[in-house]
């Protein structure tokens, strides 16, 4: 097993009395692009929220650098681990630059509100996500794809070595999905550990270096996509009969749903 700065040990995750996961152990390999997949409501977001300390586990612990994450000072944690939640609210009347600049919060203080470093990182983050040209536009006037890239730019401006992204491609058309995934892959290549929840198994298989499959709050498989994505696994996790073939572009697994009826012609 490779090193993992971030891991969850025997986690019990619950909202009030509703238990979502029990005895869940998961490690995020350093330098990986880890993708979490699983059917709707199986607990993917819940796991990501626990890994980022947004949700406190009922039992078990999340460890970061060998220390319980709950013991980390909040701002130091926010300089180490960034989270793009499944849904965030763009405040009324905020411009793209101002929103991205909020990612700098953990690096700032009352008398260090806007250093030259902040300025440089915000500009770089906007360029890296291709929203530099939108700098002065209002976020509520942007398209879904543009908005998503602005949020990613904000997470990027946080400059954390570990980045957790909850469904960064939802609501985007196919071209923008690939664009965002390529961006994540770039971030990963530059040395960050990236963890993303994705809906599309084929995207997961193509981009992930490490795949985690969840079902009903249980970890049912983890490892390289080539090992994890099999017809049996897809059928047992998603309840969908399929064939798995090689992606003609990349050679990674490609899930082809079984046809209920043969093509007409």
């Amino acid at each position, binding site marked *: 097993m490779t090193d993992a700065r971030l891991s969850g040990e025997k986690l019990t995750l619950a909202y009030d009395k509703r238990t979502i996961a029990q005895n869940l152990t998961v490690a995020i390999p350093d330098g990986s692009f880890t993708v979490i997949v699983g059917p709707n409501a199986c607990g993917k977001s819940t796991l990501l929220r626990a890994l980022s300390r*947004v949700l406190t586990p009922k039992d078990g612990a999340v460890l970061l650098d060998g220390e319980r994450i709950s013991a980390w000072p909040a701002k130091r944690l926010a300089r180490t681990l960034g989270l793009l939640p499944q849904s965030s609210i763009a405040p009324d*009347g905020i411009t793209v630059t101002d929103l991205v600049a909020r990612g700098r919060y953990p690096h700032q203080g009352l008398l260090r509100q806007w250093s030259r470093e902040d300025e440089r990182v915000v500009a770089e983050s906007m360029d890296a996500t291709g929203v530099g040209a939108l700098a002065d536009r209002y976020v509520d006037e942007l398209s879904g794809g543009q908005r998503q890239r602005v949020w990613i730019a904000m997470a990027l401006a946080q400059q954390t070595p570990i980045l957790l992204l909850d469904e960064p491609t939802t609501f985007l058309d196919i071209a923008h999905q690939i664009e965002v995934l390529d961006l994540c892959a770039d971030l990963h290549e530059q040395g960050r550990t990236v963890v993303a929840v994705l809906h599309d198994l084929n995207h997961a298989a193509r981009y992930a270096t490490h795949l985690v499959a969840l079902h009903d709050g249980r970890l049912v498989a983890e490892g390289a996509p080539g090992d994890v994505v099999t017809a049996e696994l897809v059928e047992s996790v998603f309840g969908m009969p399929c064939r798995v073939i090689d992606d003609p572009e990349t050679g990674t697994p490609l899930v082809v749903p079984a046809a209920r009826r043969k093509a007409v012609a």
Partner: protein
Amino acid sequence: MSVLRAGDLSVRFRPRALTVGAACLAVAAALAVVAIGSGDFPLTPAQVVEILLGGGAPSDAFIVKELRLPRVVTGLAVGAALGLGGAVFQSLVRNPLGSPDILGFTQGASSGVLVTIVVFGGGGAAVAFGAIGGGIVTGLVIMALTGRHGLHGQRLILIGIGIAAILTGVNGYLLTQAQIIDAARAFLWLAGSLNGRGWSDVVPLLIALALIVPFLVLAAARPMRMLEMGDDAAQGLGIGVERVRMGVLVAAVLAIALAAAAAGPVNFVALVAPQLARRLTRAPGPNLVPSMLMGAALLMAADLIGQRAFAGTQLPVGVVTGLIGGGYLVWLLVTERKSGRI
């Protein structure tokens, strides 16, 4: 956005927000001078300023400093507290309707005051504590009813409107239980008026503001701005969400309750001031300082209108804000409805 830098230190501000704040301050000060000058012994603004700076005839100075200044200071402080409290609430609730007078906090503080006056026959400091108690109890009840849905969203607003309605009934009941003398005092207080305010009425509010304003403006404003993006996003940026929310909520309830203790329930300033401020600054975020100064200016304006606009009668400031603010609320409900937010 502009930046001031000195070595490693840097401060960021919006010139436009600064201008708006300065303008509100100037308007509030000018209205205060006019208000001090008006009455049975009229004084020119120049005379008023001279006296406030320490000059003038002793008899005039007595009128200004002992009779009229407390009333005007009460007005400024109450307006500032309402504007500030309103800005905090609207930011926390993430909705312009999430104002303390809509959610029942003003009414709850009133219940606390009425209980103090009617049941215990208390005055002065007791009224202040009654108002705080009423505000806090209202907050606890609302939190119990919203439960895990948290302090935002339509659910909170609907619950708050319900609580406000119930408390209005409770306040009416309390009045029926009052002895004649207490009832007269309670009625006077309930209209929301600056008449006859002395230093003892405003001192608790001034002390509270001296603590609350630095806390909110220096320590809490930046975390609050992050909170507007949602709890998860704020937490991801290193905000202790629950701690910040509790802290600013307590500060805002204190401001609102003590404002009510000082002047009676003055409705709609907490609703309107932050929204006017935001329209003028065009800045996202809680806009705390502009909202506070806007509140002071609005309250002074409403009081002057109440004093001057209707020949022969003087309207309490709470009646004026009620009339104007009620109209604004209707307009707000219609536009929010159109934009699909309620």
